[in-house]
């Protein structure tokens, strides 16, 4: 299945793009999508413990299942204000 990945701030800089289309196997969870990104962009691995994730613009968990067409966002530690 095909999902859209959104990356922000330093994560976007590492991948060189803030929006990627990725293939994920049926039954994949958010973590599997992250792991496939890390395989392509090893520098992302430094963020393994500090990122948050969102599915379709709602905070989610790495164990959440993803579906065809989902927008999966990976968020480095935030710094608004």
């Amino acid at each position, binding site marked *: 299945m095909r999902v859209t990945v*959104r990356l*922000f*701030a*330093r994560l976007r*800089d590492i991948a060189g793009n803030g929006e990627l289309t990725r293939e994920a196997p049926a039954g994949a969870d958010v973590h599997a999508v992250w792991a496939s990104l890390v395989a392509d962009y090893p520098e992302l691995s430094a963020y393994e413990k*500090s*990122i*948050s994730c*969102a599915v379709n*613009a*709602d*905070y989610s968990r790495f164990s959440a299942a993803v579906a065809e067409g989902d927008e999966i*966002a990976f*968020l*480095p*530690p*935030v*710094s*608004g*204000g």
Partner: protein
Amino acid sequence: MPPLTAITTARLDQDAIVSALDTTGIGAVSVFLGLVRDHNKGRRVLHLEYEAYEPLALRGLDLIVTEAFAKWPAVRLAMHHRIGRMEIGDASVVIAAASPHRADAFAASRYAIERIKQIVPIWKHEYFEGGDVWIEGATADPDNAVAREEALRIACA
């Protein structure tokens, strides 16, 4: 009437944000401005660029309004966060808290800025003399009860 919460590239207008609040029965409005500071951790800051995951950032602001209402039912909150490039002295965030009495207006305003820094997906890219860096603060998790308690503790100190 302006919306209570917004993520915008436009210059923030504190009077307009205050005017978003219904002031029926209100005796105090606390307005907080967050400004772009000219220094950070010993660096001379030249300007900042803010980025947001806009739909989720807006949801985050709305969640903070809901949380504040649960704690201070008489308080009304409006919060606008600016994104994009900002110069030194520009307001990046405006929080207006209206309440029948001043104590709750101050507390809710402080709670709101602490929660923005914890859970709203916005990032600042700092351009300083000699380089640039993405500022990374808190791992965002609205369900983290410890973080929420900490924001309440600071607000009520």
